């Protein structure tokens, strides 16, 4: 064969594996949560060096022994990294990177070796495992985008591999063999027992390889790879589609995702500023009308997540058992939620709670409120709160995630708090907080208790500078001092639109350290972010006797017109104020159209001036990619749209169809498996199962012991009849001779050769006065000829001779025994 062509084939295959290794390491690194470029850079460098110096110019290579050491070191390094991340660093992404390293470091070593079939096989296995790690850690669309090219590369590489392996199988001499430890042991241990076939071949065959066979034409390979790769992807899609999902939102989640985003539990001016500088996406929010069409909102929505009612006035303020620092908002509420929509409801069943919710919604509708279905899709990195746009109700269709709602605080939370790490959360709620495409500021509420009212008026009484500032505002304005709603609106207008205050994230040191930060903001700084404005507003309201609280959430403005959803980023986090009013106080205000027949309302005030003068809904930049990412998450990674009862399964999942039956059976099977009741219906008893397993294990052990006995105790193995001397089996006449001689107590030890044994047997017989020199010698020499020589079988003369010689030996032995 033309070795140049074979080398080209190897080079091409190496190049394929190198590119796959780059892409796979890129996927692993980009999905592991930590932006570590070490592994992709390492593998890129190693493959490049290996390709040029090991494979192309053949100037350097790692020998087997060095490679084994390097491999061991690489493994130890990766395991060390894993242990460090497990016990010291406690970083899951770090652990995953260690696992990736466990694959990538050995890959680098393999690339540095002279390639042969085994090296290629090992590389393929490592690369496949790396793809698994990539699938575990990388849930972003990069995986989806790279899947097709990687698949085509794999197919093309396997094309080359099949050609190469075929040629190697026909003519193993075309490549350099690296002897492996297992092979060496096999040769040493097994072949020494079996013996090698040293007989010359009757015929030798020469393979005449044509040039076409030895090289792979790129164009043809590409043309063949594309349909096969695409076919595999189509199959994968179908398979993915048809694999039954056992419930909504069961699939998904990447390993190693750390919760890096979210709202703070304690609101300080510093951490809010940090949050507002982070452009990382947090969630997507979709608003739909009852008809299912996208709702057209006029202004950016307020997504409510948390409440704060206590403001820390000094550095040692205490609230219950908690220490609240100066300028920090703290929540003293405890949630008393009820299940949204009552207990899990099933279609067609009467559910009192749900019925009551539906009546309430109907009441809202009768007052001109729109009922919009709001879908929240929280990213896996997001940790913490659930969002609401109050007043909210259970969605039309049941969902996997059970939600509870505190109607007093208008806060939402999941029923079970054990949200999986790295798993995205998606949920829907019905909201009656909209009217004519705009979110209403006034929200009907339950009457707060007196204690709550007192608490919502506290904290700012002794802020004298603030009080003077408040009086100045009120004095400057010509509003009715008795109209609380008018006062509140004036504060909001003054802070947001008077021009005396500006929005900034560039926080400066307090001008007057004796003042509270919020007083300093109102009197001196007059620039800050939303928390300053909201706190100032709350301060002014409370000083004016209006119960108020700080609300935290998001106010997104980026709208994706392709998917009709808002993309919410961390920098969209926002704080605003809610103030409590009665119907009577609002009936003559601009909020009268938003009122229902309820008596109590929370009215939202947003005193923060818009950063760019005006905050309006704008089209998202690069929305196509974001939309693709959304589809990837929904249909592939999270799979919430692939639940068995999803609409897309309608073509195959009629209630009577085989598919539905299969889904039911699999669901039952998995449930039973998980609950440990799989075999209960067959009268399965665990004690018997354990006993059977123990007996099975013991039997296996005994069998293994029997298998190993010939190696550790060959005499015992022979005595027990576990093994028979292979030579005896092959040549019964010699076996018979040995058997005859055992009558005299002459036994051949496993370590003695037949010739040595013959000599010792002759001596014993001579001692007993019998001479069988010729016979034993004949039998032994014939045995040697047949066993080790070129002679394949006995001639007829030999056959007749063997019989007579054996009988001679037998007679001699009998006589020796008698004597």
């Amino acid at each position, binding site marked *: 064969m033309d070795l140049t062509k074979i080398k080209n084939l190897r080079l091409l295959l190496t190049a394929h594996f190198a590119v796959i290794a780059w892409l796979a390491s890129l996927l692993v690194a980009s999905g592991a949560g930590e932006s570590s470029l070490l592994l992709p850079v390492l593998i890129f460098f190693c493959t490049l060096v290996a390709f040029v110096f090991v494979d192309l110019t053949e100037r350097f290579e790692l020998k087997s022994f060095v490679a084994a050491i390097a491999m061991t070191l690489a493994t130890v390094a990766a395991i060390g990294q894993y242990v460090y991340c497990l016990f010291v660093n406690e970083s899951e992404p770090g652990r995953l990177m260690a696992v990736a390293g466990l694959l990538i470091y050995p890959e680098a070593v393999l690339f540095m070796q002279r390639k042969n079939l085994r090296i290629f096989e090992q590389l393929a296995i490592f690369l496949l495992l790396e793809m698994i790690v990539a699938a575990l850690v*990388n849930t972003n669309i990069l995986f989806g985008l790279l899947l097709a090219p990687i698949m085509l590369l794999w197919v093309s590489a396997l094309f080359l591999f099949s050609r190469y392996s075929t040629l190697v199988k026909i003519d193993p001499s075309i490549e350099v063999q690296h002897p492996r430890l297992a092979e060496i042991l096999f040769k040493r241990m097994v072949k020494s027992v079996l013996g090698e076939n040293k007989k010359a071949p009757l015929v030798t065959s020469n393979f005449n390889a044509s040039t076409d066979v030895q090289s792979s034409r790129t164009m043809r390979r590409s043309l063949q790879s594309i349909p*096969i790769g695409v076919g595999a992807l189509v199959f994968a899609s179908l*398979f993915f589609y048809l694999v039954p999902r056992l419930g909504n939102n069961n699939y998904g989640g990447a390993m190693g995702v750390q919760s890096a985003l979210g709202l703070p539990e304690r609101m300080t001016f510093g951490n809010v500023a940090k949050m507002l500088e982070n452009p990382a996406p947090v969630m997507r929010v979709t608003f739909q009308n009852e008809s299912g069409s996208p709702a057209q909102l006029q202004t950016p929505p307020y997504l409510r997540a948390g409440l704060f009612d206590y403001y820390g006035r000094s550095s040692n303020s205490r609230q219950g058992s908690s220490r609240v620092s100066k300028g920090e908002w703290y929540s003293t509420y405890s949630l008393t939620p009820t299940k949204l929509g009552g207990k899990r409801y099933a279609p067609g069943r009467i559910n009192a709670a749900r019925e009551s919710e539906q009546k309430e919604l109907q009441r809202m509708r009768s007052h001109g409120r729109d009922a919009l279905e709001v879908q929240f899709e929280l990213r896996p990195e997001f940790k913490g709160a659930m969002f609401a746009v109050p007043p909210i109700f259970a969605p039309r269709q049941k969902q996997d995630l059970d939600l509870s709602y505190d109607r007093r605080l208008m806060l939402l939370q999941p029923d079970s708090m054990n949200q999986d790490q790295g798993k995205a959360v998606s949920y829907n709620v019905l909201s009656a907080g909209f009217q004519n495409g705009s979110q209403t500021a006034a929200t009907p509420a339950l009457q707060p208790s007196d204690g709550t009212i007192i608490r919502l008026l506290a904290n700012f009484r002794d802020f004298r500078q603030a009080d003077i500032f408040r009086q100045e505002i009120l004095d400057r304005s010509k509003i009715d001092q008795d109209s609380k709603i008018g006062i509140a609106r004036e504060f909001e207008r003054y802070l947001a639109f008077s021009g005396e205050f500006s929005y900034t994230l560039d926080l400066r040191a307090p001008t007057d350290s004796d003042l509270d930060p919020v007083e300093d903001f109102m009197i001196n700084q007059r620039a800050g972010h939303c928390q300053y404005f909201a706190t100032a507003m709350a301060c002014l309201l409370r000083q004016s006797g209006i119960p108020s609280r700080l609300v935290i959430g998001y106010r997104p403005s980026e709208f994706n017109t392709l998917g009709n959803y808002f993309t919410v980023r961390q920098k969209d986090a926002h704080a605003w104020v809610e103030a409590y009013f009665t119907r009577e106080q609002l009936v003559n205000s601009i909020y009268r159209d938003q009122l229902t027949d309820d008596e109590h309302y929370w009215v939202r005030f947003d005193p923060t001036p818009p950063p760019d003068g005006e905050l309006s809904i704008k089209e998202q930049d690069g929305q196509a990619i974001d939309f693709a990412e959304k589809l990837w998450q929904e249909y592939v990674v999270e799979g919430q749209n692939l639940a068995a009862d999803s609409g897309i399964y309608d073509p195959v999942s009629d209630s009577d169809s085989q598919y539905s039956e299969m889904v039911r059976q699999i669901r039952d099977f998995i449930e039973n498996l998980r609950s440990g009741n799989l075999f209960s219906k067959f009268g399965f008893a665990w004690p018997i199962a354990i006993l059977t397993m123990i007996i099975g294990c013991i039997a296996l052990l005994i069998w293994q012991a029997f298998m190993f006995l010939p190696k550790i105790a060959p005499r015992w193995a022979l005595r027990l009849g576990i093994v028979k001397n292979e030579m005896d089996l092959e040549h019964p006449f010699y076996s018979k001779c040995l058997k005859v001689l055992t009558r005299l107590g002459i036994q051949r030890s496993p370590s003695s050769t037949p010739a040595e044994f013959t000599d010792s047997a002759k001596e014993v017989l001579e001692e007993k006065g019998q001479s069988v020199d010729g016979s034993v010698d004949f039998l032994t020499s014939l045995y040697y000829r047949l066993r080790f020589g070129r002679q394949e079988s006995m*001639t007829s003369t030999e056959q007749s001779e063997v019989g007579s010689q054996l009988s001679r030996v037998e007679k001699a032995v009998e006589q020796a025994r008698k004597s």
Partner: protein
Amino acid sequence: MASVDSTEEGSLGLFRSIWRKLKAHRRWARARNLAHVRFRLTREGVHFTGILAFIFIGAVIREISLLILLAGAMIGLLILQWRFNTSTLVGLTVRRRVPRSTTAGRETEVEIKLTNPKAWLSAWLVQSEDKIQRKEPESIRVQETGTALFDTVRPKGMASSNYSLQFHERGEYTLGPTVLQTRFPLGLGMGWRTLDNSSTIIVHPRQGELTQKVSSLFHLEQLGQAKSSSKSGNQEGEFFGLRPWASGDSKRWIHWRTTARLDKLSVRQFEQQQQKQITVLLDLFDSSEESSKEHQEAAISFIATLAARTVALGQDKIAIGIAANQSSSYPSILSSLMVQNVLRDLAVANAVTDVDFLGTMRGLSVPILTHPQLLVVSTRANILPKLQDECEDASVERLLTMTRVRWIDVSSGELEPYFQWT
């Protein structure tokens, strides 16, 4: 009694017919089974499937969508591999072109023609593997294989490839059945199909070089006919026929028209008025000595060389008897076709202990009666006296008595002066 017998015969016949049908069905099932395209995973495929199982179990337990997607793609590749393997091999036919005979030690080319009858699917990277085993003399050695590889066979097309064989020992060899196999496209699995297309090739004994002394050996044999051996180079005699050219032939004897037609040098052979009669008997006795096999081969090779050379030169008459496991006698070998027959018999001759020496000699009685000289090439010492003593057949005894026998014992090295053989 008669009725009982007939009942027994009837039931026995029924059993026999059922048994025959069962056997026929078994044969048919076996043939069909062999012709089916089989599929198995290669070592790489086993690794691949192991990882696939790992992924799938992981995907189900951890409920990770991307792993399901990955598993789906891998299953897809496996299914494509299986479909391609099986579809490619279905319907492929193989025609093997192999010479009827060859000589041990000479390289022999075997041409394989692969035909793809399918209308749309090409066959890629198809490997044709012929099992090669010696049938006669029987051998239990491991089979060898002859392999040819085809890059592409287009739909409704044909491709040819070849492999070369070098037989080291004489005999009758079986080539086939052919196993067609392919790992295309991904090497994860291998499809194979066995074709029932065995053929045989006779491997003639390796020929050596006759030394100058061999002519003296026959000269002595021809004492009494000394006149007949005189032959002038220019006196060709009457035209007898055509034969292939052999070393030593005069250029003037070349028959150019036939040479042009056959593309092979042919010479005219002339009727020799006075030819030597060479009568040789090969006595292939198995002496069960270690060097016995080598002696047998030397003796066989000598006879083969002698027959081929004598007929090629066309000067002398030769008669050959082979006393081995199957005895045969050729009283008059005149053409290369007859030489081929002799070589065939020599190729499969096997030494035995009960050689039918006298029977073989009786087969040569015609040339012996004409020229009562016999050259015996044997693997043992002269046994004629013993044979004469034991002979009970009067005609054979007379034959033995009247024949002047020259006995060459190969095991004693008596052949070495006359024949060089490696």
